[in-house]
């Protein structure tokens, strides 16, 4: 085993050895970090002292670096709490590696808004989760713009928390929105704890998912540049576009049409960069319409199918469809309503052919 000498010394100094699983967890977390960012993240972690950090040689293979870090952590006898914080720093930096789901909390009618107290929130959240499940590791970390990052490693009644499958929750105090990553089984517990701690009444999923949490925030906080369909269509401002170099022998016949597409597109998507979303899904549960002779029609079952769109940057891709001549402008509102409706998972049902998305919340 590595670092046996050091460990013995550490044990002598403090009379306390570091848990084997904690050491392994720190080692694996350091291995995940790109080499040139290791120092930066360790400094942010603020667990190892400056002199300790200086002893680390970053110009060797990562395997070795991670071992050195673990040895130093053993000197300081790190616990899982500290290890979790390092994981949070990593995941905050690489937050686009997870798929985030947005939840919205609601208050009951007539309920007063309490002023937010962070310590109170943390206490209530922990108590609520721990009362249901003893084996959980809960860590908090505050970031700028009122974001509270919560990391939860779940265990079971008999098993220790699995640190490698931690759930991340990002909550913005003063807003009803919560962003949750990778959670399957313990969702009800988490929802209950969130609602309880932030003194809301209810919570529901918004059917909005993306890897880019910042774009999700832009959408739900309505921060992206948008031109809402106003009742008074604005005249297009003259924009100072550098005249394109066009050979006079090439004559564009559809200049007017092109300009129309430009203006329609701008009206729908706005001028700025679109929020980043990687997918959109439409579940169709509509009746099959076609020739009456076909057998399918005799059944009254809806015709089920799922249409998925995916792209590294879906909304920008949709925006460029019409100018590239690949689709007619304007695009279907089903595709362009994603930022306004703040959802990218839809279910389309038979109801005079109208999409049922409007049945969502307030």
């Amino acid at each position, binding site marked *: 085993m590595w670092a046996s000498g050091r460990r013995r010394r550490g044990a002598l100094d403090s009379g306390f050895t570091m848990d084997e699983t904690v050491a392994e967890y720190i080692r694996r977390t350091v291995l995940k970090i790109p080499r040139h960012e290791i120092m930066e993240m360790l400094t942010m972690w603020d667990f190892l002292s400056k002199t300790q950090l200086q002893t680390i040689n970053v110009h060797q293979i990562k395997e070795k670096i991670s071992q050195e870090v673990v040895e130093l952590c053993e000197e300081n006898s790190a616990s899982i709490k500290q290890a979790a914080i390092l994981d949070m720093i990593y995941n905050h930096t690489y937050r686009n590696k997870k798929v985030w789901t947005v939840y919205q909390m609601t208050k009951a009618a007539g309920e007063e808004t309490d002023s937010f107290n962070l310590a109170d929130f943390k206490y209530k959240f922990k108590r609520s989760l721990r009362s249901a499940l003893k084996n959980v590791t809960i860590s908090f970390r505050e970031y700028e713009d009122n974001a509270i990052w919560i990391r939860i490693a779940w265990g079971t009644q008999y098993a220790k928390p699995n640190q490698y499958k931690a759930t991340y929750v990002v909550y913005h105090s003063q807003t009803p929105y919560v962003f949750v990553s990778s959670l399957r089984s313990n969702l009800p517990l988490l929802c209950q704890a969130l609602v309880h701690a932030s003194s809301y009444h209810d919570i529901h999923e918004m059917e909005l998912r993306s890897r880019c949490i910042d774009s999700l925030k832009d959408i739900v906080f309505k921060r992206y540049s948008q031109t809402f369909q106003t009742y008074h269509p604005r005249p297009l401002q003259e924009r100072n576009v550098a005249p394109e170099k066009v*050979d006079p*022998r*090439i*004559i*564009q*016949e*559809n200049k*007017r*049409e*092109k300009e129309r597409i430009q203006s329609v597109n701008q009206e729908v998507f706005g001028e700025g960069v679109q929020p980043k979303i990687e997918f959109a899904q439409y579940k169709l549960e509509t009746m099959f319409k076609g020739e009456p002779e076909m057998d399918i029609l005799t059944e009254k079952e809806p015709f089920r199918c799922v249409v998925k769109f995916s792209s590294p940057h879906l909304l920008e891709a949709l925006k460029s469809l019409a*100018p*590239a*001549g*690949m*689709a007619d402008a304007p695009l279907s509102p089903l595709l362009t309503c994603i930022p306004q409706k703040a959802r990218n998972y839809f279910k389309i049902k038979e109801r005079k052919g109208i999409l049922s998305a409007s049945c969502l919340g307030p």
Partner: protein
Amino acid sequence: MSLVKPFDKLPTLNAATILLVGTDESQQQQLAEAILKEKKTFKINIHVATSLPLPAERDHIRPRIDLIAFMINMQSKHSLRNVEASLSHMDANFFLGKVCFLITGVGRMNHCSVEMNAVRKLGNLYSSPVLFCELDSEGIRAATAQRLLRMLQICAGHMPGVSALFFSSLMKSSIDE
């Protein structure tokens, strides 16, 4: 609705006009530039449109069109439908050799959403040549430009003894083999 007609205007001296119709603007631009790069002995006008009919307000300044090339991208059904819709806005005289179909995007077979049969049928139906070209590659783009220029020369009547009609039947027999 204004039909495009091949013989409603007098030809301009030592000039020829080609019309590119297709939905992919960047591809049209690329091809147009490739055509302009080629050496030629006459003055050329390249008109670019997404679909037919052409806007009527420009009718009076548009020269006589000698050749129409419809561009179909095999990866986009939209481009095929657009061409099919445009074909009905043309004078039948055009189909006596002054139309060709340029098929692009055949290279990546698994991306194709238009069937090869549909394109061949279109060519047969309108008795016009179907040219396959991969406009992404510079060499093929230049070759396509040369080919179109040659056809344009014939269609505009710059080649003594060869007419567009004659030329189209030549093309057709080579495709059928």
